[in-house]
């Protein structure tokens, strides 16, 4: 009985891990409940230098763990920052009191739940996870400016 449970757990775990590894090969997009964001503002948001949106709603930045392939891909390809540089910037914020840590989630489904239920939340997802999503998570278009 115990053995069977473990097999099921391992199987589920492998599916989850596999999903995320597959996801790492996909196009990754910024996700949340706004339409678009300027690139400098996006970096300020993920660098935790910006604490709330225009209307005063606190920004909740949602990320995968630091070693997660999607996180590394997002840092390099979307933000254009080496992950370690972003992490040092976060640590400097957290341990000087000048900013808050991002919220870390373990997998895509957890990311979706927080993005769809916490006002002001922003994160990132593989593009296929946002297309045709029944919840109100939107792909946020990045405005690169002139």
């Amino acid at each position: 009985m115990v053995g069977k449970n473990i097999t099921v757990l391992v199987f589920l775990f492998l599916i989850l891990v596999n999903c995320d590894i597959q996801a790492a090969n996909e196009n990754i997009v910024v996700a949340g409940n706004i339409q678009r964001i300027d690139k400098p503002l996006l970096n300020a948001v993920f660098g935790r230098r910006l604490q709330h949106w225009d209307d005063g709603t606190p920004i909740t930045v949602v990320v995968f763990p630091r070693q997660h392939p999607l996180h590394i891909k997002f840092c390099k390809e979307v933000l254009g920052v080496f992950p370690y540089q972003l992490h040092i910037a976060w640590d400097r914020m957290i341990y000087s009191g000048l900013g808050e840590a991002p919220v870390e989630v373990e997998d895509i489904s957890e990311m979706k739940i927080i993005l769809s239920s916490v006002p002001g939340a922003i994160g990132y997802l593989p593009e296929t996870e946002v297309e045709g999503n029944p919840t109100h998570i939107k792909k946020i278009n990045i405005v690169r400016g002139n």
Partner: protein
Amino acid sequence: MMLRVMSKTLVLMFSGIVGQFFTLDSSHANTFMHWHGFLSQGYLATNENNLFGNTEAGSIDFRELGINASYRPYRRTRLAGQIISRTAGKSDTGEPDLDYLFVDYSAYSQNTIGLNLYLGRVKNPFGFHNESRDMIFTRPGIILPQSIYFDRVRDLALSSDGFQLSSEYRLKGSYIDLRAGYVLPRLDSGTEVSLFRSDLPGDLKGKPLLVSRIQYSTTDERFKLAYTHFDFNAEFDFPDDSVGEIRFVPQIVSVKYSVGILELLGEYARRTFYFKNFPLPEKQIGESYYLQLQFLLSDSWKIVGRVDQFYADVNDRDGSEFAQQKGFAVPAHSRFARDYSLGLIWSRGNWLAAIEHHRVDGTGWLPVQDNLDLSKTERQWNMWGVMLSMRF
């Protein structure tokens, strides 16, 4: 209302997984308390002289513990505080210290401009490393470049009580960050030792000071340029009721540039002292600089090499005049220090381990508290250090 309830439920549901926040007050569904902390334990050994303990025999009297919280009672208002316990030989006893505790009010936040006001005890915007200097994950090794980030006098540099303003101007591909404050300095007997080279009988009274730093950074964080300017004024009441005046103006230029796995970082500091009614020269200029090269070997490993130079007085770089004035009771080598260091750092997740070696010529920044008889210090000395750290 519905959203608030939902988010609170979810936050509670996920707080077990995320493990970093929980709600304090049921009326604020969207306000989380973030908790973080760190524990670091070092081992230092020197062949001559003592640094943070009796290191000539090898010492574990180097420990840094910290715990902090950040809480948002209102949408634009946040409270943040941190307590640190730092043990470093005789210069730091491990007594818990309120590192910072302030209200952060987000006054303005638009696409291109952000403005925050801080009230309370806030970390000083001093160079690149001061604001999170006691947390090894954010600094380049076991000890910071001592020529600029003196560990024997910390209180003046660490944090101060008052009002600070922080503004950010976001440009295309870069941003400018300006911090300015009007604050009261934190002073201790170590400050006196640093200003006068001895703990004189009398009282040091700090006046409010201006602190400022302007920083330019590219959004990819690869290039940073900063200028720090402090203007510290104090009075000293001698036991005979005479009053001395001190003005201390440290200025720092900081530059960081990284390409791929390579990061080059340098800071240059000039410390100008003005003394009135003191048995000291009216003006003295100290100078410090370091150049550091860092190689990222992989996601977890990096090598850091550094040359760090300190001069107490630019008009007496070898300290010979000073030694002569003191009748050679204080050695000339206590007025300068050149430190070559090489370190290896491993970090993964919430763990970090570091090992480093220093070859030092001079004792300019050596803690006086650990070397009470300066005449017994050696000019050439080496240090080996190991540190283990975890954060949460």
